[in-house]
């Protein structure tokens, strides 16, 4: 399989998005592997910053690309492929957050607290530096509606307009959430 991956990067390094999508639609494994290679870091930023480094985030990341594979025929090339993938990642991540909320609500009255503890406790064991710990803790403290805005702006570098397009929200809503997210983040960071 590692041979496949090296072949993938050699054969498809200079291939355009459109060609990769077309090849993937014919079932070309290497072409789709190249799409995964190109965009996995972007998906990891969205999924891991939103859900924390839990044992399930890798699964959600895989689900993003599996869903992409089966919906590639619907991709018309009007938007960038990265935007299309980002939308899938955001939707699946928000669904997972809602699912977790429902799960914890079923078993506990203090759903938010329990969920927060779950996210923190399940952090992977790799050593993180101080700055990384700070950002992760701050993100996990935030309301998920603000956390997604912060992720899009701060970690993905999208403009306000692009954020609105990906989240399927009016620009005004994004601007107001951005301002409230900034306020909440400032308060959280002051305590950390």
């Amino acid at each position: 399989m590692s041979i496949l991956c090296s072949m993938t990067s050699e054969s498809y390094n200079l291939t355009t998005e459109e060609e990769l999508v077309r090849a993937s639609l014919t079932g070309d494994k290497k072409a789709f592997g190249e799409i995964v290679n190109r965009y996995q870091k972007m998906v990891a930023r969205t999924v891991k910053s939103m859900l924390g480094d839990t044992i399930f985030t890798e699964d959600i990341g895989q689900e993003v690309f599996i869903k992409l594979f089966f919906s590639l025929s619907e991709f018309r090339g009007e938007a960038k492929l990265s935007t299309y993938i980002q939308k899938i990642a955001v939707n699946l991540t928000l669904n997972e957050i809602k699912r977790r909320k429902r799960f914890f609500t079923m078993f506990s009255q203090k759903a938010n607290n329990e969920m927060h503890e779950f996210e923190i406790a399940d952090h992977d064991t790799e050593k993180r530096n101080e700055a990384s710990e700070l950002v992760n803790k701050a993100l996990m403290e935030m309301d998920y509606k603000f956390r997604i805005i912060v992720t899009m702006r701060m970690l993905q570098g999208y403009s306000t307009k692009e954020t609105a397009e990906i989240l399927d929200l009016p620009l005004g809503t994004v601007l107001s959430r951005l301002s409230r997210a900034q306020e909440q983040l400032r308060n959280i960071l002051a305590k950390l």
Partner: protein
Amino acid sequence: MNIAAVKKLIINSLNPDFNSGDVSSRLEEEGISYNFSQNFTENVLSRLFPAGLTLNREIEFAKYMNFAFYRVALTGVAAIVLLLISIFIMEGSLSLNSFLGLSDSYAESIVCLLTGN
């Protein structure tokens, strides 16, 4: 970059008019990065293209063909048995003439039938 500078950068990145394009790369320099495991691509591909999928399809095709053949063969055998029973009931025997529908015909009648004379 110290922690205070990181905090300031994070908060400023949320200003609507702030160009946040290079924030992620600056944060990455500070060790704030998110990655999946090294085998991520392989795991996705193995979920999408399981190794024995093509082989499994061929085996399943052969299995369904066998099944279809048995269904057709059994139906055929049942039809033949029913035919034999009905001939036996109608003709009273299972001779060649009964099979050909000639049991009560005389040789002259057959010649007449075939030649018209």
